[in-house]
């Protein structure tokens, strides 16, 4: 991990967090802004949003119960439709677990 100075949370990150919390009521939530890792990349050249373009998100929620991975991810994509569309969020790395799955992972 690099030693990044305490960074301000951007508006998109704030939105993402609030939307997910509201819709999925997670028991655990974590979000990391990875945009700096990609800002020089070919795919982002000419993009207006390079500071909040890539995020890594972990969501643990009972809402995921009985849903396979693609379905869980689609749920999140739906919630963050605006961010992925007009707001210019380019990619999301998603880790989606149910509370039970999360528990057993913690024990490992």
């Amino acid at each position, binding site marked *: 991990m690099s030693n990044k100075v305490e960074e301000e949370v951007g508006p998109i990150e704030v939105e993402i967090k609030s939307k997910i919390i509201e819709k999925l009521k997670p028991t655990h939530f974590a979000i990391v802004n990875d945009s700096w890792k*990609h800002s020089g990349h070919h795919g982002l050249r000419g993009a207006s949003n390079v500071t909040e373009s890539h995020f890594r998100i972990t969501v643990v929620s009972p809402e995921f119960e009985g849903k396979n*991975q693609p379905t869980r991810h689609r749920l999140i994509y739906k919630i963050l439709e605006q961010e*992925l569309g007009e707001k210019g969020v380019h990619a999301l790395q998603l*880790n989606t677990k149910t509370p039970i799955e999360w528990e057993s992972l913690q024990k490992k």
Partner: protein
Amino acid sequence: MSVIEIRSEEQFTELTSQSDPKQLIALYFHTPWASPCVQMNTVYTTLAEANPSTVFISINAEDHPQISEIFDVSAVPFFVLIQNGTILKELSGADPKEFITSLNQFQEQSTSYPSGAPGAAAINSSSTSTSNAGNGNGNSSIGQTQFQSQKINSVNAQQQNQDAESESESEEKLNERLKKLTSAAPVMLFMKGTPASPQCGFSRQLVAILRENQVRFGFFDILKDDGVRQGLKKFSDWPTFPQLYINGTFQGGLDIIKESIEDDSEFFNKALNNEI
């Protein structure tokens, strides 16, 4: 004249550094186990006999990787027409008709224009166009075969979409095309760039996972076709790339595939056998 099968790089260099600027040379890259190549072998030989004014060269792409690299061959069968040291046309895929058309086009020009300057429209440096190949069932599927080797290891399922009118493709037609594309190979990867040259870290990682697990796959470079790029997002109901399809069913992006294989090392086999 018969087809000349290349045995060495020196031979290739000798044959292609022709002093006659009008001489049209056809190159055919193939591998022994790619099934569309088997069909094309016969076609190519017949054409060679029928067109004595053109030099027909055949190259086993795996035996001669350096030559393949010069022409950036990433899938077979692959044809190149050259004249006067210039690449006139490249054709990816087993479409005899298209090859014959190009052959005739350039042959005419090489005979009617005395100096080594074919007609205005002729010179396309690396205009790669891909075509459908009719396979045994008469379906026009994407007919290029994959094979595992260092340089050449995947199917290029790039559709022919070079015409300007491609933008006005109706949604219905697009969906039909997408259906065909997603089933073009048992495992289909829609990615940014190509396996040999990925344009995105996530696409690169997914290619690596497939290779590590020795999964044969077809790929499609969505950077080369915006219609597919946008259409597939709707079709898969998935906003990002890379996207992996197995047996025509959407499986997920990098995160999901990574997790699936971590949870179960037999993931790909099971998915291929429709056990998932």
